[in-house]
Each structure stands twice: as C-alpha cells, then as structure tokens.
C-alpha cells in the first residue's frame, strides 16, 4: 500500500454497520453484494435478522461503503454530532481529512466561517465523546459538543478581550520605546506578545504539529522575529522593535475582531425558535423548547408563533414569509395550520401544538441550512491547493527579502529585518479559506428568507452548470388538481367512485368526487397501477389502461378504465391545468438554451396536451423507478441534470439527479430527498439567479483575496521603496483587512 493509499484508509480491520430496510433474503444478498463491490473490501457478512453488516476490509473508506449500501436502496444507521472548534478558515479542509481518518467516521464537514464541525459517524464503533477525544489527540484541536446552533457569540467577546489588552499595553510600549527606555518597553510588550497574541502562537504550534502552515504561522513568525530580535538587541544595546511586535499583534486583532463580528452577523440570520417564549392557555409563560404536543398556547398580534400547530380558537393575519417567501399576510382561523417561526401580524389565536422542538418546521430549516453551510464546493479544491503552498512560499519570499536587502543592497540588519517581517505580516491566506463558504452562507441564508431551503450548498454551484431540466408533471408543472370526465355505463362509474373513496391517490380523489354511497369489500390497492374491490357483489377494477387490460376483456377510450366482472364498461378522461408559473419558468429556461423534459407517470392524453401547450418533450407513463432510470441515463451521458418534482413519488429521481429540487408546501421538509426545496415552481428562477450570483460572488471574493495579497506583498517587501514604504505594523493592519473586505463583500447584495 502506498502512502497515498494508506492516507485514504478510513476504516479498521472490521466494522459493524446497522443496515435498515432489509426485509427478505434477497435484500441481505443485495446489501452484501453492494458492500463487496466497494474496492478494498475483503469480505462482508450481512445478517438479515439483526440487520448488522460485518465488513472486513483491507483498504476502503467507510464513506464509500455507506454510499454503496444507500445506492442499493437501503440505509445505514448513523449518528451526527456538531462540534465547535477554533480554527483558521484555510485549515478547514485539512481538519476534515484528519477527522475522516478516525475509525468509525463516515463524513466530516467543517464550516470555516463559524467553526462548526458536523461529523457523521457509525455509533456502533465510536461514541461522540470518544470522537471528541480522538480529534484532540490527532489534531491538537479541542472541540466542544454543540447542539444545532448556528454559532456562538463567544468568539467576538474573546477577540475583543484580547484586543483591549493588546492596546492597553501597546500604547505604553510605544511611549517607552520612543522615550529611549527599551527595557521598560520589553516588559509592557510581554502581555501583548504572549497573552493577546497567544492564539496565533498556539495556532502556529498546532499547524506545525499537523505538518502544515497557515495564517497563524505567518503572524506568529513575524511577531516573534521582531520581539525576540528586540530581546537580543536590548542585551547587545542595539535598536529594538518592541513597538513593531506589539503593533503587529494589536493591528491584526482589530481586523480579526471585525472579521469575527461580520462572520457572526452572516451566520446568525435565520430565525430560530430557540429563544422564543410561549404563553400557555393558563397564563404561564415557558420557553418554546419546553412545549409539548397537545399544549394550547395563546399568541397575540405582533408575536412570533413558537411552535407548529392548528388554530383552536380566534382569528388573525399571519406573515408566513419564512415558509413561502411571500410577505402577503395569510388569514388564519379555527382549523388552519400555523407554522412556528411565522408572525401573527394582527388578531388573537389559541393554537393547539402539533410539533415542538427539533421537529418543528423552522428547526428543520435551521438544521438544513446549517448543513448546507458546511458545503464543500468543487471550486474549493483549487483554493485549497493554493492556500497549502501559500504560507511556505511567503516564508521563502520573506527570507529572500531579508537576504536581498541585507547582502545585495547593503542595508542594516534592522532595516532588512523590518522588510522581511513586513512581508510575513502582509500576506494572509485566510480570505482564500473564507471566499467560498461566506458566499455560500450568504446565499443560503438569503434564500431561506425567501422560503427556499438549500440543504446541500454544493448544489448551488452545480445548478449553474445544469444543462438538462427534467420536470415531474402532476403537481409540479400542473396544478395537480385533477378533474375527470366519465363516459360509458353509469352504474360502473358509480362503482368506480365508491371504490376510489378508499384510496388517497390524486386521481382517485377526483373520481371519488362523483356521488356514490355503495359499500366496498376486499379493497386492495396496487400502487401506481390501480385498485380492486367488490362492490354490490361485483368484481370491480379501476386503474391505468395497461393494468386494467391485463386483467380484463374489452377496450375503452380514456385514461382510466373501469372493469366490472371481467369486462371494461366505463372510462374516465383526466384533465389537469398547467400552472401560470410553469409557463414563465419553461420560457425562461428555453431562452437560456436549456434542454427541458417532462417526465410523468400519467399515461393520459392530458400529458401530451401539457407537452404541446408548453412545447416541451413529454415522456409519459413512467413509474417512480423509471423516472429515476431516465435521470440516471441522462447523467451517464454526461449531462448535468436538475430534476424538479413534488417530493414523495419523485424522491428516487430527485436523489439520482445532479441537483434534486423538491417542491413542497414547506411543512413536510424532512421527508424530501431534495438538495433544494422550493415552495413553488416559480421560485426556480430565483434559485437559478442565486446560483449564478453565488458562483460570481465566490470568484469575486477570490479575486479580492488574490488581488490584495499580490499588491500588498511586493509593497511590504520594499519593491517600491523609498517612494512607498509599508512598515510591518501597517502591513499587518492591511493584511487583516483583507478578510474584512471579503466578509463585507459577501454581505453586499449584487
């Protein structure tokens, strides 16, 4: 095994995984086969009864094994835990890799903007506490467990404390330095150098331990060179630079505190129910988190509704923009559903609580958005490569600068040292690490406010490249309110209506609206095909043309046939109106030159009618699996496919697409497989616009980072000396403003 291969080894010799969804011998053999298909797996033993898969490996990643099982249509029991860690943005990728090396870890994603690590692991081989210990042992980073909160405020406070200490001691240091009292300056500079600057020295040490370099290395190196050289200079009575060392730390802290504040502002934008209060029916006020299903709460005008529920009493106007993106208030009265996080603008409501805590819609949104924020966009790979060589290159340049000024140009050691320290202090790899996540973070947050939930941040970048858009028809392109027109034997039609009352299918609902009060026995439903039952002593089958003709004699027009005692005697035509939004979306996509396909399970003439109306290709009569197959084939052909469907029956196709977009009413977010969830089809255009803007923003942020460094470093090195001279302390200030610039730019709306 080569070194590179052994690096990829994410799993010990044996790992036990709990597989879910197996219910027969075929299933366990399918799972076993899929595991063995992963490169590096030696053997796999799947127990149907216990659901445990014992996997013996030589060299394979746990992530690949879990993915293989999931691809085969089953799932694996995993646990997710969030940790908070103090890291530099450019170290995020390295930390992810190190964590993924720990036994039992499936996936780790680090959000460089708020220092939250989300780790998915196998609870059968490691616990979250053991994981925290392992992370500390392997990387030197102390992590603390957090629940799904966005970020904590302590970073800004911590930075502020150090910043104040830094300036309190830097000012006297400056005074003593210029008053010719270097020994006193030495003492006043100690708290700045070793307390205020401690986080940089520790960071540099950790980086050194992990055999890498980062921004802390540059800061620590530059301040330590200036400080320790000054210590030596005090002893040998030469010129000292305690002021330079202290100012370096103090100026960097200004920028970094500002950056921490901005990052936090970007992160904490989504409303959370965490700090809300709820007023119970009996007048008691409790935290929203303590609410239980079945509680009745009182909400008054102007208040935020603290949990999901049903209105029990009262009337009011609710702003549901958090779910739908629409700011128009919606009238609510007895029996209407309300969603936690929305605001009661006027009126009074007594609400029966149906979902609380982490099960509420808004909590799920916050969770989803948190996950999206840790996304790793493909563009980040390039950025990682740049930042991994950036710091060593700068250290080399700094040494070169010293050599050139001292030995080639004949300047004094002190002057050469100042140029060299300025070079170190002016360069900053931080914004490279921040550019992508900050852009994603702002977009994900802004979209969430419009009711568009991005669950997978990467999809924002992929969507921009999508060339094929496949739409589900019913409920997505059309209104999904099917109306039917029956023809043929009237008695058969009333039998059909009676039988369809038992089914939840949208077509069944339309047929069952025809009045009929007959009794049904032996009802059986064949999902995706039709239904069977005994009505009035007759065998009745209602369903898709193919399904009915397979079981009955005769022929019929229409889309749904009715068979009574083995003969087709009636039929229905289906009609479903195209949404106004769909026309707009399809037109816009056509203008962009995208390929559009409508894939539908509907086999009726109506499907063709919709296709003709929109002038789009329609592939009809597809089952859920066939839709997924269609998507898969397009992806195999090298196309970048976005599938847009309304969730449940499109789930597999949504999962197979490069970008899966689910349309939902908002409340059932958890069960959707989509990378992105939009409230209605019209929002697809907003989403596409944001996808374009996000990628543009990333590029602009990177341009800031590159531009800033490539201008600042040569100036600090003294290229324009003596016309322009940048002392180390100003170089440090300018450097720390680089990240501030990137953060601010991410906040600017384009």
């Amino acid at each position, binding site marked *: 095994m080569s070194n590179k291969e052994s690096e990829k080894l994410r799993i010990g010799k044996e790992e036990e995984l709990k597989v879910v969804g197996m*219910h*027969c*011998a*075929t*299933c366990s*053999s*399918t799972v076993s086969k899929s595991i063995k298909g992963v490169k590096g797996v030696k053997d796999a033993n799947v127990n149907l009864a216990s659901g445990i898969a014992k996997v013996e490996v030589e060299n394979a990643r746990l992530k690949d094994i879990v993915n293989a099982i999931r691809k085969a249509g089953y799932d694996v029991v995993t646990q997710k835990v969030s940790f908070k860690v103090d890291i530099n943005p450019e170290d995020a990728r390295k930390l992810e890799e190190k964590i993924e090396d720990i036994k039992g870890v499936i996936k780790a994603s680090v959000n460089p903007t708020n220092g939250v690590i989300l780790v998915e692991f196998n609870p059968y081989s490691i616990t979250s506490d053991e994981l925290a210990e392992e992370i500390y042992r392997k990387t030197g980073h102390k992590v603390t467990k957090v629940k799904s909160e966005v970020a904590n405020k302590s970073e800004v406070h911590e930075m502020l404390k150090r910043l104040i200490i830094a300036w309190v001691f830097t000012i006297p240091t400056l005074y003593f330095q210029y008053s010719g009292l270097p020994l006193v300056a030495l003492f006043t500079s100690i708290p700045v150098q070793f307390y205020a600057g401690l986080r940089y020295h520790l960071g540099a040490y950790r980086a050194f331990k992990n055999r890498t370099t980062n921004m802390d290395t540059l800061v620590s190196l530059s301040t330590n060179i200036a400080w320790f050289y000054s210590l030596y200079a005090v002893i040998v009575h030469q010129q000292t630079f305690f002021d330079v060392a202290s100012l370096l730390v103090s100026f960097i802290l200004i920028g970094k505190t500002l950056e921490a504040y901005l990052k936090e502002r970007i992160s904490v934008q989504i409303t959370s129910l965490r700090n809300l209060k709820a007023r119970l029916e009996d007048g008691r006020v409790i935290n929203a988190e303590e609410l239980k299903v079945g509680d009745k709460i009182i909400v008054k005008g102007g208040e935020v509704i603290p949990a999901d529920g049903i209105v029990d009493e009262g009337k009011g106007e609710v702003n549901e923009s958090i779910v739908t993106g629409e700011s128009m208030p919606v009238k609510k009265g007895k029996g209407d559903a309300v969603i936690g996080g929305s605001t009661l603008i006027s009126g009074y409501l007594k609400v029966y609580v149906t979902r609380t805590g982490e099960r509420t819609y808004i909590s799920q949104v916050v969770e989803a958005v948190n996950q999206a924020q840790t996304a790793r966009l493909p563009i980040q790979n390039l950025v990682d490569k740049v930042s991994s060589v950036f710091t060593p290159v700068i250290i080399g340049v700094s040494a070169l600068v010293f050599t050139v000024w001292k030995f080639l140009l004949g300047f004094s050691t002190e002057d050469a040292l100042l140029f060299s320290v300025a070079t170190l202090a002016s360069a900053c790899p931080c914004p490279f690490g921040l550019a992508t996540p900050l852009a994603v973070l702002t977009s994900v947050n802004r979209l969430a406010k419009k009711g568009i939930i991005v669950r997978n941040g990467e999809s924002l970048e992929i969507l921009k490249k999508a060339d094929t858009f496949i739409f589900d028809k019913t409920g997505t392109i059309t209104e999904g309110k099917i109306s039917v027109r029956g023809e043929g034997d009237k008695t058969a039609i009333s039998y059909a209506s009676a039988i369809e009352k038992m089914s939840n299918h949208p077509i069944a609902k339309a047929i069952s609206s025809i009045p009929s009060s007959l009794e049904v026995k032996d009802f*059986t439903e*064949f999902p995706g*095909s*039709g239904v*069977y039952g005994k009505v009035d002593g007759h*065998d009745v*089958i209602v369903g898709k043309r193919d*399904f009915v003709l*397979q*079981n*009955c004699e005769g022929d019929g027009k229409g889309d749904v046939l009715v068979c009574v005692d*083995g003969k087709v005697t009636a039929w229905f035509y289906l009609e479903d109106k195209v949404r106004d939004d769909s026309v707009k979306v399809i037109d816009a996509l056509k203008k962009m030159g995208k390929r559009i396909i409508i894939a539908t399970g509907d086999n009726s003439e109506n499907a063709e009618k919709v296709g003709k109306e929109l002038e789009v290709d329609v592939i009809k009569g597809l089952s859920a699996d066939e839709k997924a197959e269609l998507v898969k084939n397009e992806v195999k052909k090298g196309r970048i496919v976005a599938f847009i469907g309304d969730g449940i029956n499109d789930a597999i196709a949504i999962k197979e697409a490069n970008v899966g977009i689910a349309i939902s009413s908002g409340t059932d977010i958890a069960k959707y497989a989509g990378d992105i969830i939009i409230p209605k089809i019209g929002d697809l255009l907003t989403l596409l616009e944001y996808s374009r803007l996000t990628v543009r923003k990333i590029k602009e942020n990177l341009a800031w980072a590159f531009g800033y460094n490539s201008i600042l470093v040569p100036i600090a090195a003294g290229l324009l000396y003596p016309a322009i001279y940048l002392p180390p302390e100003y170089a440090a200030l300018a450097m720390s403003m680089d990240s501030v610039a990137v953060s601010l730019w991410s906040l600017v709306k384009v």
Partner: protein
Amino acid sequence: MMIDPVCGMEVNEDSQYKTMYKGKVYYFCSPHCMKAFQKDPEKYLREGPKGMPNE
C-alpha cells in the same frame, strides 16, 4: 399464507408487494420478486417458482 410465485417463499396477505394479473392477486416477499414477475408473469405461472432473482 400465500406463496411468492417467483422465489417460492411464504408471504402474508398484508405484504406491500403485490400485483394483479388476469384478475388474480399475487403477493411477493420483496420488490425484486415483484419486478421479476411483472416482467414475465406467464413464465412463473407456467414453470413455477425459480428462486431469488439475481439482479
């Protein structure tokens, strides 16, 4: 108890995998068996169960 016409296993009538063919309901132990049957029902009705389908 019913017999899965594809693999020959015993299945309950409440199995979620079922299909109707020529007016008769058939029950299966898994989606794999159901798919195999739907592809060629006559083969299984004529020749009897064949064991687990190899996918």
